[in-house]
């Protein structure tokens, strides 16, 4: 499903350069439930962004579904993201002026699905998240947990093969964290490869595989 070979990434500023990923080798099978842990600046979010085709890498190879992800045009990258990958962010990243249903339906808009059809599908997904009654509410009318559930519904509405979550529980209390993790675990059981970046051990313990990163290198992979 996902194979990385000797992937390197360096960020350059005017004065300095920062070698964030120093030769990552990684293989993730379809349906895996993986967490990536590490201290701040260890390179875990950079790795997730490269996996999500949100960022480029400098050297090495990244294969997604046996396709080499390198030097893609923006249009190709957009199509891949839309087809293959769902994102969940720590700060939810919902669009403020769209209600919950419209936010969830947004990926389908880019698949040219009619408004009526995509709204109907979005309502189904919100129902699955227990938020049907909140469909017409704006994000600022919702709690953090509700927002994250809306974000998860949006991430999976395209039926992606991979779900990438960057600190999905970072802004949530412990009870909501548990609810969100149950949701993510449930989604993984439907066959979606789920990769979570987190610094919370309790969250990582929920996954089957924990990848520890330190200073841009994979230190070890722990199987739960």
């Amino acid at each position, binding site marked *: 499903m996902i194979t990385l070979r000797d992937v390197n990434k360096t960020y350059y500023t005017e004065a300095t350069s920062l070698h964030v990923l120093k030769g990552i080798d990684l293989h993730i099978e379809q349906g895996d439930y993986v967490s990536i842990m590490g201290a701040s600046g260890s390179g875990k979010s950079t790795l997730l962004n490269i996996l999500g085709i*949100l*960022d480029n890498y400098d050297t090495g190879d990244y294969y997604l579904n046996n396709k080499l992800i390198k030097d893609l045009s*923006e249009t190709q990258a*957009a199509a891949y*993201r839309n087809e293959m990958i769902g994102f969940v962010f720590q700060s939810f990243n919902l*669009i403020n*002026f769209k209600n919950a249903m419209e936010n969830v339906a947004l990926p389908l808009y880019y698949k040219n699905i009619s408004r009526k059809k995509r709204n109907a599908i979005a309502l189904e997904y919100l129902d699955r998240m227990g938020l049907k009654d909140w469909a017409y509410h704006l994000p600022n009318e919702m709690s953090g947990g509700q927002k994250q559930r809306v974000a998860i519904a949006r991430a999976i509405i395209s039926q992606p093969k991979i779900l990438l979550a960057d600190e999905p529980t970072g802004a949530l209390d412990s009870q909501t964290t548990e609810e969100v993790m149950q949701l993510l675990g449930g989604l993984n059981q439907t066959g979606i490869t789920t990769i979570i970046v987190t610094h919370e051990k309790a969250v990582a313990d929920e996954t089957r595989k924990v990848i520890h990163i330190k200073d841009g290198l994979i230190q070890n992979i722990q199987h739960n």
Partner: protein
Amino acid sequence: MFDLDRWQEIWYTIKHNKSRSVMTAFGVFWGMFMLVCMVGAGSALKNGMESTIDGFATNSCFVYDQQTTEPYKGFKKGRNWSIQNEDIPLLLKGVPEIQYLAPVLFGGQGANNVVRKDKSGTFNIKGNYPSYNKIEENKLIYGRYINDIDIAEKRKTCVIGERVSEVLFGKNVNPVGQNVKVMGIYFQVIGVARSISQVNLGGRGEESVVLPFTTMQQAFNMGTKVHFIAATAIPGVRVKVIEEKINQILKKQHNIAPSDKAAIGGFNIEEQFTMFLYLGIGIAVLIWIVGAGTLFAGGIGVSNIMLVTVRERTKEIGIRRALGATPRTIIRQIISESIVLTLMAGIAGLMLGVGLLSLVGLVLSQTDSFFQEPQISFAVAIVSLVILLVIGILAGLVPANRAMTIKPIEAIREE
């Protein structure tokens, strides 16, 4: 395809930045408003110029005698000469390109030169042929114009101007058949005329008394002298051609050096009209340059505000791109916003401009102003809207390009 989401977002952007949108759109609004007003003012000027010349043959020229400036065939320079009756048939024969030819006399200057009973006034006295009415057209309020029989029989008849009639007979009185005394001689009024053109030779038509040419020559002892020759060219022939031929014949007939440019005076209405025409085109071009420049400046304002909008929406653009928005989708979104903002403002400016022009047109129609009917044509409105559309697209290009440089990951990270 109608895309409600896109229009919803355009509306959101405009609505949630009301004051900024209004300020930005004002540039385009004002540019369009000014363009419409200037084009309208230009059309009023053109209409004014056209109405001035309306009723006057624009394919005409006028020729008159002046002192010679060169010695020729034993004659010294500075000799006075005059056009004579005998020249007329020679000209008609020698210049087949002449459509109408009318010799003209002026005369009878002096106070109270036209009298009727106890009323009198000072008016212009002209001696015309019937053909002159083909060159400087008069509308007859009463009666008829001078005809060939008046000329042939040297009848003591006259056509008086509307103002002359009012002074001598009063308003709304038909004076046809009455007599007036012109410089001591009685003439019977056969018509009352109103000049259609605002260009009148020898004074305003309304304040003139026109006598048969032959009668005037004989009654006032003018011999066979002709003061002016008015001529028009047949369609397809330039007036300059007949003017030159007339000059050649007159020079030959009156022993004037062919190279003497000052001995024969004249003016060519066609040339004047062409000058007016070019002046009108020049003004129109200037108006469009200034107007389009103002619109363009408004477009730059829109572009600037779109840049700010893109900056403010960096995160949103990043999220959209993460969710699968292609660069084309984003570009289309931003350019659509720019077009909508530009068109809305432009159409408002267009409507207000047209409204103002209608109002001014209404006021002008009540007055005797030179400017007439300020308006813009449908074609101008369409062209303006097309210009707006182009400006809208251009204004959106720079911000759209800026949006394209935003990397999804950087945008998402932005707080």
